[in-house]
Every structure is written in C-alpha cells, then in structure tokens.
C-alpha cells in the first residue's frame, strides 16, 4: 500500500518534471537521436575490428586491400561517434541546466509570494536547501539519467542485437551469466544497507553533539567541561568508526564482486566462442568482437543500478522543490484591488479574531480605532505578542474574522504593495540587505536624491558613522549586516524609514541593541518623525508609554487591557502592576 503510494507520488513527480522538460523538447529529441547514433556506431566498431582481424590470418595471408577499406570505414565511424557524443553532451547540459534554472526561478518566485505563515513555520535553512542543494542534486541525477540510463539501455539492447546476429549460442552464455552480477550486487547492497543506516545514525548523533558543543565552546570552557565533553564525543566516535568500517567495507565489496562476475562472462564467451570457432561457427575476428561485447554488455548493467538509485534520489529532491513550488500562495489580490492613496492615518480594527493555529486562540474580539496622528503604545512582557499585531497591520497575516481598515478601506481589498508603502517599519531584528549602505537606504524610495538620503541619515544619527566607513555610503554591508554593530544596524534601519516617511509608522523601540544614551538621541528623531503620523510603538520607555494616546497591554498574544495611561492606572490591572514593578522606584 505504502509502496503503491510512493510509486504514485513518484509518477506525479515525473509528470511534473516532464512538464519542465517540455520547453526543451527540441534538444530532448536531438539528444535521443544522437544517443541512438552514438550507441549504434560504438557497437559497430568491434565488428569492424573483428573484420580486420579476420583479414590477418597468418604470414602471407593478409588482405591489405580489404583492411584498408575497413579501416577507412572505421575512421568514419569513429568520427561520427565522437561528434554525436559531443553534441549529445551539449544537448543534455542544455536541457538539464535549463530545467534547473526554470525550477529555481519558479521556486524563488513562489518564495516571494508565500504567506508569511509558511516562511515563519519552516526553517529557513531547509527552504534554502530545497532551492539550492535539492535542485543541484536533481540536476546531477537528471544529467546522469540522460547520459547513462538511456544510452545504457540502448547499449544493452544494441549489444544483444549485434550478438544475436553473429551467434545465438554465445549470446545465450552472456545473457545467462550476466544476471548473476546483478544478483550479487543487490545481495551485497541489502547487507550493507543496515550498516549504512547505523552509520548515518551515529553520524547524526555526532553532528548534533559537535553542533551543540562547538557552537557553545565558550560555555564548555568556562565550566571546564572539556574532558567530559571529549569523553562523550569519543564514545560516539568509536561507534561511528565501528559502523563506518563495516559500511565502507561491505559496500566496497560490490565492485570486485561484479568485476569477478564480468570476468566469468568473459571467460564463458572465450571458452564457448573458441569451441565454436574450432567448429568453424565463427571466425576469430567475430570472437574478438564478442569478447569486447562481453565487456560492454555487463558494464551498463552495473551502472544502471547506480543510476536508478541516483534517479530515485533525484526524484525525491525534485518532489521537495515541487512541493515548495506548488505551495498555496498568499491570498491573491482581488482583481479590483484599489491602490491605497491619500492616507492620513485612520486605522480601525473591527471585531478582529486571530490565531496562528486553530487550537490556540490568541486575539479575540479586538476593537481599536486610531485617529490620524495618534500614538498607540504596545506594552507587555517579552513574547507578549507584539509581533502578532504588527503581522496583522502589515497584512503579513490575514485576520481570521473581523476586519482591519485603513481610511475605512478593508486592507484585504487594497493592494498589498500600496498598504505596506504607507507604513514605515523599524523592527527590533535589524535586517539589512547584503548590498551597499546606499542601496539599503534607498530601498523604500529608490528615486531619492543624494541630499535627501544624507538628510535622512543625519536625522537618524547614522551619517557620522557612515562617513567614517571605508567607502562611506558605498560600503558594502556583509551578509546580515556582518561588519556593523547591532546599534549601527538599527540606526540604518531608522534612516531607511526616515527617507520615505510614510503616513503611518510601526516602531519597535529597540532597547536591546542600542544603549540608552544613544537611544535618547534617536528619540528626538523619532519624535520628529511621529509628529502628525499615526504610530504603533512597541514601547519600553516610560516616557513613550505615558505620552501615548492609547496603550495596549498584551500578554500571551492577547490584548488584555486598552486605554490611556491614566485610565489603565485607575483600572489597577495588569498595566498598573507592570508600571509599579518597573518604573515606580
């Protein structure tokens, strides 16, 4: 049942892969034709060789005229084979790399429109590995499949045909002994499988330990646990070595064994062929041709078993990428989606219900009305769910029921782009693109002038440190902001928003990466920026909270209290408690 399922899945994967290959059908047909040419001419060569040998009987019994003729044909055949082989390789590369490129493009395009829910719910490393490693593996498998599977099968069929046309009896010898080689190979593979599994289990365990301990080497050393950890490591290492030896050894028996069986085939052909030759059934040249077929015939068999595993692996990889490509995208925008313009900052949340998973309710019946220019402060303990609110406002996630409206328009009825352009967002996690500082700053307003950009950087207190960087605004920031300190990254993120200054702001006051003194300086900039703009602020600082028009107290993802500072103090609930524990000295 399970097997059938898997085969079913494999079939659908193959069908989908074929759809990708379809764009390259000309190359595919060409490649197949060339493969036929290659195989036929490759197989024809031993026959020609045999014919030459038959002209070399002994002293004085050599027909040079015929040999010359045959050699000429040989030359042509060789040239044709070589040309066909080369063209076939080029075609195969074209198909494979083209398909891979198309798949990657589709996968990436899908990533751009996947709902945040999917991206948040999957490990990024795993998604990256689908787009990069899986596709690569698939390419290898596909290429190998093209170059080896098809020609392999053709070679087997062709050899059989040629052999049969020369002598049936000897062909039977070859056909009967060859399966032994397959049998031996699969016998060994089965034995080896267990060892390989145990090896990879031990390897996984070891990698986990390495990951954990080396990743936190400083803690290990701080507590003087080096020896204990090494003991732990050695114990796994010993097991790994044990299984590894067996797995490596058993699997490496395969080659000699199949080679031995091939030797048997060769011998069989030699004996039977010689005996037949004595009886005059075949010539010596034909025998030599048979001998070289015996070599060629068994080789594809040995390769095909490898190719099939490789192909299965490739299909599994393809299935993983295709799964990503077919993933449900975010709700598409309605055809009549309006472009949100003339935003002054009216935001209303109407009976909003939201939860990430069905079994864990989060936001229930949440109502909020924000007037233009109002400040909404979100407070609460760490992990209180402030990101949830940001997710909903920016429409990274859609509400389960109820509605969020900007300027009275349901945000699901306007284009995502225009909604998001009206928000300026500074998050605590400071993400910058691996590009120059200029490109990062201009992200929200590519058409900004140099003066505007510098002014924004100045306002965010970023200009002075940018100027001191080796290439100023053209300094390339390493991946994930590598060379900059957390505080500097934060300043750049602020400058990025300062430049485009949209009518609504989402600010995550980042006390974690900027020290309080620097933050104070930025506060002024923030204050200027918030002037006349609707702002949602995740607040830690008392002054921000107190001056907010509305305070939302969140905990465990829910909004528990809502009101102004005074109102909430009078209510004497969660907020009042938090206020007393943190700020009342």
């Amino acid at each position: 049942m399970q097997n059938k399922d898997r085969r079913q899945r494999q079939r659908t994967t193959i069908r989908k892969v074929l759809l990708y290959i379809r764009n390259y059908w000309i190359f595919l047909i060409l490649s197949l034709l060339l493969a036929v040419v290659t195989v036929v001419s490759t197989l024809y060569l031993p026959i020609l060789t045999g014919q030459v040998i038959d002209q070399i009987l002994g002293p004085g019994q050599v027909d040079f005229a015929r040999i010359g003729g045959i050699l000429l044909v040989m030359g042509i055949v060789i040239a044709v084979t070589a040309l066909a082989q080369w063209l076939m390789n080029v075609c195969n590369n074209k198909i494979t790399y083209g398909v891979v490129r198309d798949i990657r493009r589709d996968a990436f395009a899908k990533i751009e429109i996947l709902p945040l829910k999917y991206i948040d719910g999957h490990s990024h490393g795993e998604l990256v590995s689908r787009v990069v490693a899986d596709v690569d593996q698939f390419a290898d498998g596909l290429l190998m499949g093209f170059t080896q599977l098809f020609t392999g099968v053709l070679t087997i069929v062709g050899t059989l045909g040629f052999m049969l046309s020369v002598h049936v009896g000897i062909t039977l010898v070859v056909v009967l002994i060859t399966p032994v080689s397959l049998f031996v190979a699969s016998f060994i593979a089965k034995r080896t499988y267990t060892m390989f599994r145990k090896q990879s289990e031990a390897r996984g365990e070891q990698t986990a330990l390495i990951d954990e301990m080396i990743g936190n080497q400083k803690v290990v050393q701080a507590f003087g646990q080096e020896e204990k950890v090494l003991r732990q490591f050695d114990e796994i290492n010993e097991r790994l070595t044990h299984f590894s030896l067996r797995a490596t050894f058993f699997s490496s028996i395969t080659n000699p064994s199949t080679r031995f069986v091939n030797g048997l085939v060769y011998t069989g052909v030699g004996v039977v062929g010689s005996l037949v030759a004595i009886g005059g059934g075949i010539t010596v040249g034909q025998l030599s041709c048979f001998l070289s077929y015996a070599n060629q015939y068994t080789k594809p068999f040995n390769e095909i078993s490898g190719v099939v595993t490789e192909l299965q692996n490739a299909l599994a990889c393809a299935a993983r990428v295709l799964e990503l490509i077919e993933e449900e995208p975010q709700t598409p925008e309605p055809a009549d989606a309006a472009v949100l313009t003339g935003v002054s900052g009216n935001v209303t949340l109407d009976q909003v219900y939201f939860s990430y998973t069905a079994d864990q309710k989060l936001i229930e019946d949440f109502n909020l009305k924000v007037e233009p220019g109002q400040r909404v402060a979100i407070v609460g303990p760490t992990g209180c769910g402030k990101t949830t609110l940001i997710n909903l406002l920016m429409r990274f996630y859609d509400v389960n029921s109820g509605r969020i409206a900007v300027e009275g328009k349901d945000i699901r009825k306007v284009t995502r782009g225009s909604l998001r352009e009206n928000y300026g967002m500074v998050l605590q996690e400071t993400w910058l693109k691996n590009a120059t500082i200029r490109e990062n700053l201009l992200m929200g307003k590519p058409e900004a002038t140099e003066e505007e950009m510098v002014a924004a950087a100045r306002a965010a207190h970023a200009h002075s440190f940018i100027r001191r960087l080796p290439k100023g605004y053209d300094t390339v920031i390493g991946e994930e902001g590598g060379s900059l300190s957390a505080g500097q990254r934060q300043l750049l993120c602020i400058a990025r928003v300062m430049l485009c200054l949209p009518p609504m702001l989402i600010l995550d006051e980042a006390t974690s990466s900027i020290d309080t003194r620097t933050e104070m300086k930025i506060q002024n900039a923030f204050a200027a920026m918030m002037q006349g703009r609707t702002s949602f602020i995740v607040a830690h600082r008392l002054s921000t909270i107190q001056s907010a028009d509305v305070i939302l107290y969140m905990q465990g993802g829910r909004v528990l209290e809502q009101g102004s500072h005074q109102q909430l103090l009078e209510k004497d609930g969660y907020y009042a408690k938090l206020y007393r524990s943190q700020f009342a000295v």
Partner: protein
Amino acid sequence: MRKLLVYMKDYRKESVLAPLFKMLEAAFELLVPLVVAAMIDVGIAGQDKPYILKMSLLMVALGVIGLVCSITAQYFSAKAAVGFAGKLRHSLFAHVQGLSFGELDTLGASTLITRMTSDINQVQSGVNLVLRLFLRSPFIVFGAMVMAFTIDFKAALIFVVTIPLLSVVVFGIMLISIPLYKKVQGRLDKVLGITRENLAGVRVLRAFHREKQEEESFEAANYDLTHMQNFVGRITAVMNPVTYVIINSALMALLYTGAVRVDAGILTQGQVVALVNYMSQILVELVKLANLIITVTKAVACGNRIQSVFEVENSQEQLAANASQDTAFSGNVDRPGHAGRGQELPLAGQIPVVEFRHVSLTYPGAGAATLEDVDFAAYPGETIGIIGGTGSGKSSLVHLIPRFYDATDGQVLYRGRDVRSLPVKELRSKVGIVLQKAVLFEGTIEENLRWGKEDATKEELQAALNTAQAAEVVAGKEDGLSEQVSQGGRNFSGGQRQRLTIARALVRKPEILILDDSASALDYATDARLRKAIGELPDQPVVFVVSQRTSSIRQADKILVLEDGAVVGMGTHLELLKNCQVYQEIYDSQYQDRMEVLRNAE
C-alpha cells in the same frame, strides 16, 4: 594535508597492504589477454579443445585470486581510512577544546563544525580511494604497455605515443575545468545568498514592496549560474569524444601494424587480439584515474582546511612557574601606585580577590584597543558594577578574569597572582560566569546544573536554584530536576534559561561570580529579588554585574563606568550621579529623577 598523515601512523601496515593487494589484483587482470591470445593461437588454431578448457579454468582461477586480493585490499583500505578519520575527528575535537576564546572567535563555530563533519568525511573517502585506486590505475596503464612490449616491440610503440596523448587530454581538460567549477560554485553561492536573504528579510522586503526587484536580481544570478554551467559543460563534454578518437585511432594503427607484422610472420592473430584488449583496458583506467584525481583534489582541499585548524595554536601562554611564585609572594607587598588608594578602600590591607593593573586589551586584527588602562581592585564580598554603552568593553573586561582572553598590556591578578601563572582549569574553577547568551545543553536540568560542580548534592543544587530565582522554573516542570532540556534549551523561555544558567554558575559556589548582562530577560522584580539573594550568599563571593540598566548595579560597592574601553568613572551610585557625566546621562536616559535622588541623598 601532509601533517594530517601522522594520524595514519597506526595504520601503516594497512596502508601498505591495501595498495599492494590492489596491485596484485591488477597484475592478474593483466594476464587475462595473454591467456585469451593463447586460446586463439594454440587452442583454435590447433583445434585443441582440452587446451581451451584448461585455459578457461586458468582464467577462472585468475579471477578468483583477483577477487580474493581485491577484497583483502578493500578491507585494509576501509580499515585504514575509517580509522584515520576517527582519529582525526578525535584529535580535532580535542584540539578545539583547547583553543582560547580569541582563536574560537577568529575561526568561528560554523567553520569548525563543517571542518569536523563534512570535511573529514571527504578526507575519509579520499584516503579510501587513494589506497584502492591510486596505484592500481597507473599500474594497469603502464602494465598494459609493458605487456604490449612483451608481445611486440613495434606495436608497443603505439602505446608509448597513445598513453601520454591520452593523459594530456584527460588531465588537461581536468586542469581547465576545476577552476571553472570553482566559479560555478561561487555563482551558486550567490543564488544561495539571495535566497537566504529573502527568507531572513521577508518582512522588510515586503514592507518596502521589493518582491519584483528581488525576483529580478535572483533571475540575473540564476542566469549567470546557468550560463557558467553550460560553459563548463561544453568544455568537459569534449573529453569523452576526444579520448574516444585517440584510443580508436591508436586501435586502427595497431590493427594496421598488426596486419603488417602478421604478414611478415612476426606476430600471430591471437597476439593482435591481445594487443587490442590491452588498448581498451587503458582507456577505462585513465578515466577512473581522472575521476579519482577530482575526488583527491577535493579531499586534499578539505584536508588543508582541517590542517589549518590544527595550526591554530592556543596563543595563551602560561607564565613560568617561578615567575608565578614571585607574584604570589609579592602580591600584597609590591603594589606601587595602589598604596594611596588603599586608604579609601574599606578592606585595605587585604589581598584583593581580583585586581586589574593598567590593563589594556586589543583584539587581534582590531584597529583600536577594546580596553585601555583599566585599573581597579575587588575585595572579598564586594560587588562590582560595570556599566556603559554597547561596545564600550564591558563584557571584554569581565572575560579577562577567567582568562577567556589575555590582556595585551598590564596584568590581571587573582589573589595577588598573575592569572597567566595559574593553570587555566584551576582559575576557572573559582569563577562562576553567566554569559549574555543563555545556553543550556541537551540532557536533564540536573545534568546541566552539574556542569557547575560534578558532585554537587541535591541540597546544593536546590540552594543554587533558590538563589537564582529558578526554583519555580524547575517546580513548574513535570519531572522537576529530571526534566529533559532539548538542544539549545529551546523548550525553555529566555527568562527561564537565564535563571537556570545563573543557577548553574552558582552551584560551584564560586569565589568570583560574573553576571554578564545576564538578567536582561528578567523583569525588574525578579531581577531585584535575584540581586538580593546573591547579596545574601553565605560564601560572600566577589560579584561582577555587567549591565546597561542602572537599576541592576546601583547597589554595587563600586561601579565602573566604561566608555570606548576607558574607565570614565569609578565609585558608588551616588558618587557617580554627582560627578560622572557619562553615568548621569545613562541614568537620565532611564529615569527622570536624578536631581531629586541627589537632593534626597544630601
């Protein structure tokens, strides 16, 4: 790579026997065409059936011997390769355990992890392949040539021409394509980079509505990659056809020469067949050799990377023993520059537990000093607060105490002795440190706590938990102390992890307790309770509290205010509020009542 070979030492026997048996196998393989030739020339020509059967038995015998030899070889080579890799892994892991923080910073954890896993695996399969094939393939190639010479000198000359020609083509194409493959890898990395960036920055990118541009830049990188792949593909695609042409041209030459020689009665028909067979053996082996070389180059590259980790030595030196004796005795006597200050200190005359003497620290490769001329002393029972902005050197300062790093100038003393004169292990056993990043390890809570002290009693564990305000964390778990911690402690919240790491540091009853911004995830109330409990510890450790919050350090006996690595203020909370501008600014950024506090204090 070469230096790694010492780990092969224990497998000397195996690494000689494996190739030896492989060569034996190859030798038997080389005999087969001769047997076939004999079959044709004697058996078929002489119509001698028993001879043919005899020869075929000989061939089977050769095959069996070959099989035995090669399985023996596979065993020895697997044993050597796997054993070598095991030893290498052990040594590398042990080596990393002994590196100092400075070296760990330069190398980086992710690099070390790759070195230890995939790189070593590559080296293992490289060694295995070398032992099995490196001698076999050339042996067959040259063996076939030698055999050809035993048959006929003139025909063998064709081999002499063909083999170098083939080698030039095979290795030439390889030499050209290997650097190109590196370029392909580089472009693949670009594709990977963009993908990763788009996942990590998904919120920002969508907030700025950049999806289209990102798709375009991915498309460009994707195109570059495909273009390069096709380019390299076209070059490597040449290899097979060209070798095919060379080997078959040689075959034609061989047939023609054979014809001439047979006609002259120098060669027999069977011998021509044997020569043809030798020719085809060569091609197979050359291709194997080329593949082998690719694997080996990869393995050598991996091996070199591993070796470069071995070459990183722990740069921390241990001062000579006698030097340490000196400091031990002179610690409390010879302290120029400190005599005057001693009078202000409450515990004058005592030996400070920790003392910094004009300490500076510059990280290797850094342009500017991280710490400059830090000078202070901490006496038993004292609490030292360290405050300053991001990057002011707070963590670096406390990291000097357990010798995570060594001062580049000046001295750090533990009870009057230069920390560099003490065995690192002993020194660290006196220190309980809680790092910024709260890390727990896979295992039970108890096992994690025992990192602090292997043989701690249940009471000691409980006491530490109580002090760290972590008792409720444990009590809240179903299995209490035996609750399983998943890797990295993911099943605990940040605050819970922080409290458990504090407990872990307390279990060993340290003489010096360092809290490196380790209450950041705690709310103010818990933080306050924690500070109080630590203040009441019976062993009166010296406590270093690193923080950005004045509330966390205001009770300290002495507060160091750091800015850009320099101490810009030292004193109690009130003193600093009065006269340290940086401290005032920090305080003002968190509270608004400085004037009031100062008035009240008067």
